[in-house]
C-alpha cells in the first residue's frame, strides 16, 4: 500500500516540477536579451521533472526494502511481543497474521497472540509510513529546487536530458543481462552446495543414477548420483535421434524451398513449416506419448522384440526431431538464400545442373550458416523438457538401443524438484547441478553458433 502512495506522490511532484520549470523557462526566454534559450523550454521542464522523479524512485526502492524490517523490529520490541514463541514457523505465522489485520488485508485474527500485536503493528506502520512520505517530499523538494535553480538561458538542459535518457535506456538493457547473471549465480550457489555433499567426480563420471530422496541427507550415497546415463540419454534423444530426423529433413526442405519451389508453392509451404515452430511443446508431448510411442512399441513387437518399452527414446527423439525441423530449415533457408545469385549463375553457366550447383556451390557456401543452425537446434533440443517429460521415462538407462526407455537431464530436473525430498536434500540439490551443466552446454553451443554466423555474415559483405 505505502509504495503505491509514494509512487503516485513521486509522479505528482514530478508533474508539478515539470510545469513549474516550463513556466520558468518561458519567463527566462522572455527576459533574455535575444529571446532565445540554449534548449527548448520542454527540455528544461524534463530536466527538473527527472531530477525529482529519479531520486524519489531510488528512495522508494530503498525504503520498500528496509521499511518492513524496521517495522518488525518496532513490533518485536513492544511489550506484547515478549511472550511470542522464540523462533521459527509459529512465530512467523503470528507476525504475518497480525500484519495482515493491521494493513486491512484480513478482517480479523484467529490466533489470540496475534490480536495483541495488531495495535503495535498499526502504530509502527503509520509511524514508518509517515517517515517515508516526509522523506519523499524532502528529497523531491531538495532535488527539484537544486535543479530548478540551475535553469538559466544558457543552461544546456537538452544535452543533460539526453544523457539521462541514454542512462535509462542503458539500465533497461542491463536488466536482461543482470537477470542472466542472477540466474547463473543462483544456479552456481546451489550447485556448490550439492558438490559439497557429492563429489563432482562422482557426479560427472558415475554411471549409476538413482538418488533416493528418503535417504539420510547428511551422508548421501555418492554412487547413486552418477549423471552419465542422463547425459547419454540427453545426447541420444536430443542430439542423435532428433538430429537424424531434423538435419536431413530440414536441409532438404530448405533446398527445395529456395531452389526448386515456385513462388506459389513457397508461399504456402514456408508458413506451414513455420507453424510447426509455433506448436506448444506440450502438444508435441501428447503426440509423442499417445501416438508415436505406442506405434513404435507395436512395431517393435512385430519385429520380434520381447517386452519392448512403451516409453522409448526413439519416440521422444523422433517427435523432438520434427519439432526442430523449422529451426534447421529456416536457418538453412536463410543462409542458402544469402549466397549471392551470381554464384548460382556462375555455376549454371559452367554447365552444371541445378543439382550439382546446390551440392557443389550453394551448400558449401552456406555451410557455416547451416552448421550454426544445427547447433542452435541441438541446444534447443537438449534443453527441451515437455516432450521428454511426457514421452521418455524417468528410468536412467545407459544403453544404445533406441527402443529402450531412457531419461534426460531435463526430465530428472523436473523429477528431483517436484519430488518428496526436502529442499536441502542432495537429491533435490542435484537438480541444480544438472541445470548448471545443461546451462553451460547450451551456452557454449549458442556462443559457438553465433560466432560462426557472424563470421559467415561478413564473408559476403
Amino acid at each position: 500500500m505505502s509504495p503505491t502512495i509514494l509512487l503516485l506522490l513521486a509522479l505528482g511532484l514530478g508533474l508539478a516540477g515539470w510545469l513549474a520549470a516550463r513556466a520558468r523557462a518561458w519567463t527566462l526566454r522572455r527576459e533574455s536579451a535575444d529571446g532565445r534559450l540554449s534548449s527548448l523550454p520542454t527540455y528544461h521542464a524534463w530536466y527538473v521533472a527527472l531530477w525529482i522523479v529519479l531520486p524519489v524512485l531510488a528512495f522508494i526502492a530503498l525504503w520498500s526494502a528496509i521499511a518492513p524490517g524496521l517495522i518488525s523490529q518496532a513490533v518485536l520490541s513492544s511489550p506484547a511481543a515478549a511472550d511470542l514463541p522464540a523462533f521459527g514457523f509459529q512465530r512467523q505465522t503470528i507476525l504475518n497474521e497480525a500484519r495482515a489485520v493491521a494493513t486491512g488485508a484480513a478482517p480479523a485474527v484467529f490466533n489470540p497472540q496475534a490480536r495483541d500485536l495488531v495495535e503495535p503493528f498499526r502504530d509502527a506502520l503509520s509511524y514508518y509510513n509517515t517517515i517515508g512520505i516526509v522523506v519523499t517530499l524532502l528529497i523531491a523538494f531538495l532535488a527539484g529546487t537544486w535543479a530548478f535553480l540551475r535553469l538559466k538561458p544558457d543552461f544546456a538542459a537538452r544535452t543533460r536530458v539526453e544523457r539521462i535518457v541514454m542512462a535509462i535506456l542503458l539500465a533497461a538493457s542491463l536488466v536482461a543481462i543482470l537477470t542472466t547473471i542472477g540466474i547463473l549465480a543462483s544456479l552456481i550457489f546451489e550447485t556448490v552446495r550439492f558438490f559439497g555433499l557429492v563429489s563432482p567426480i562422482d557426479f560427472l563420471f558415475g554411471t549409476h543414477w538413482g538418488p533416493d530422496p528418503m535417504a539420510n541427507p547428511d551422508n548421501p550415497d555418492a554412487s547413486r548420483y552418477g549423471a552419465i546415463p542422463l547425459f547419454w540419454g540427453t545426447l541420444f534423444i536430443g542430439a542423435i535421434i532428433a538430429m537424424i530426423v531434423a538435419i536431413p529433413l530440414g536441409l532438404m526442405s530448405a533446398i527445395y524451398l529456395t531452389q526448386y519451389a515456385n513462388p506459389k508453392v513457397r508461399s504456402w509451404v514456408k508458413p506451414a513449416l513455420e507453424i510447426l515452430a509455433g506448436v506448444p511443446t506440450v502438444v508435441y508431448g501428447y503426440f509423442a506419448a499417445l501416438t508415436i510411442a505406442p506405434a513404435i512399441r507395436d512395431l517393435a513387437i512385430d519385429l520380434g522384440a520381447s517386452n519392448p518399452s512403451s516409453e522409448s527414446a526413439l519416440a521422444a527423439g523422433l517427435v523432438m526431431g520434427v519439432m526442430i525441423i523449422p529451426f534447421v530449415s529456416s536457418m538453412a533457408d536463410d543462409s542458402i538464400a544469402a549466397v549471392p545469385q551470381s554464384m548460382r549463375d556462375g555455376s549454371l553457366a559452367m554447365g552444371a545442373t541445378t543439382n550439382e550447383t546446390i551440392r557443389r556451390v550453394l551448400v558449401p557456401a552456406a555451410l557455416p550458416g547451416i552448421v550454426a543452425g544445427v547447433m542452435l537446434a541441438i541446444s534447443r533440443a537438449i534443453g527441451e523438457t515437455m516432450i521428454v517429460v511426457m514421452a521418455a521415462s524417468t528410468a536412467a538407462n545407459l544403453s544404445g538401443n533406441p527402443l529402450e526407455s531412457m531419461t534426460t537431464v531435463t526430465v530428472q530436473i523436473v523429477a528431483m524438484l517436484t519430488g518428496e525430498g526436502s529442499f536441502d536434500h542432495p537429491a533435490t540439490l542435484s537438480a541444480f547441478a544438472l541445470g548448471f551443466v545443461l546451462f553451460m552446454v547450451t551456452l557454449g553451443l549458442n556462443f559457438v553458433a553465433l560466432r560462426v554466423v557472424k563470421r559467415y555474415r561478413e564473408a559476403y559483405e
Partner: protein
Amino acid sequence: MTVVHENLEATDAKMSARDVSVFYGDKKAIDEVSIEIPTKYVTAFIGPSGCGKSTFLRTLNRMNDTIPSARVEGDITLDGEDIYRSKMDVVQLRARVGMVFQKPNPFPKSIYENIAYGPKIHGLAEGKDELDAIVERSLKRAGLWEEVKDRLQDSGTALSGGQQQRLCIARAIAVDPEVILMDEPCSALDPIATAKIEELIAELNGRYAIVIVTHSMQQAARVSQRTAFFHLGKMVEYGRTSDIFTNPLEQRTQDYITGRYG
C-alpha cells in the same frame, strides 16, 4: 529494321540468331534480332543501359532459362544446331558456350577448385595429373598463372577484383568452350585491371568466338572486330567495328557514339 553493313566479308558463323524476340512476362525486351556471330572474331554489343544487349547475350547460352518469366522466340543456332530445340542438352550447350559475368563471381573455394570445377562436372580429366594440367593451362591462357602459381590453395575470393575476373575467364576456358560470352566484364574493375582483361581478350581472339557486351565505346573499338549497336530492344546497326565508329549509317548510332545520348 537492322542496318547491316554490306562490306562484311563472308566468314563461318559460329552462332546465328534469326528473328529472336525475348519477353519478360508480357514485356518485349528484345525485338526480332538477327545476327551472325563469326568464329574468329570478337563481336561487341554496345548500346545505352536497358537496351537489351545483356538480355540478348544471355539467350546465346540459355541463361535466361533461370528466369521463370522469360520466354524466347525465334531461332538461335550453334554450328547449325538449334539450341532451343527440346532435345538440346543445356549442360552441353553451356559447356560449349561459356560465360563471364559483370561482377567477378569466383566460388568461395580455392583457386585450384575454381578452375577444376568445370572439368570435374563435365568429366574432362582422368586423374589428378590431367586435372593439374588443365588448371595450369587455363590459368596460363588467362594470364594469371605467374601471379597465383604458388598459392593455388588460397581462396579465389581473396584475389583482387581484376584477378578474380581473370580467374573467372580461366574458369570458363577450362572446359574448352567454343564461344565465350562476356557481360560487361570490366565494369567493376579499375583502368589497370581493365587493360589486362582487354589484353587477354586480344590474346584469346582467334582461339574462341568471343561476344562482349560493353558500356564503353572505347573498349568496343579497342577489342572487337565486329560491333552491333542495340537500342530499345532492337539491333539498330551491325558491321565492322571500324565502320560503325567512323562511318555509321544510322543517325541513332551516330548520336550514340558521339555521346549525344546514352
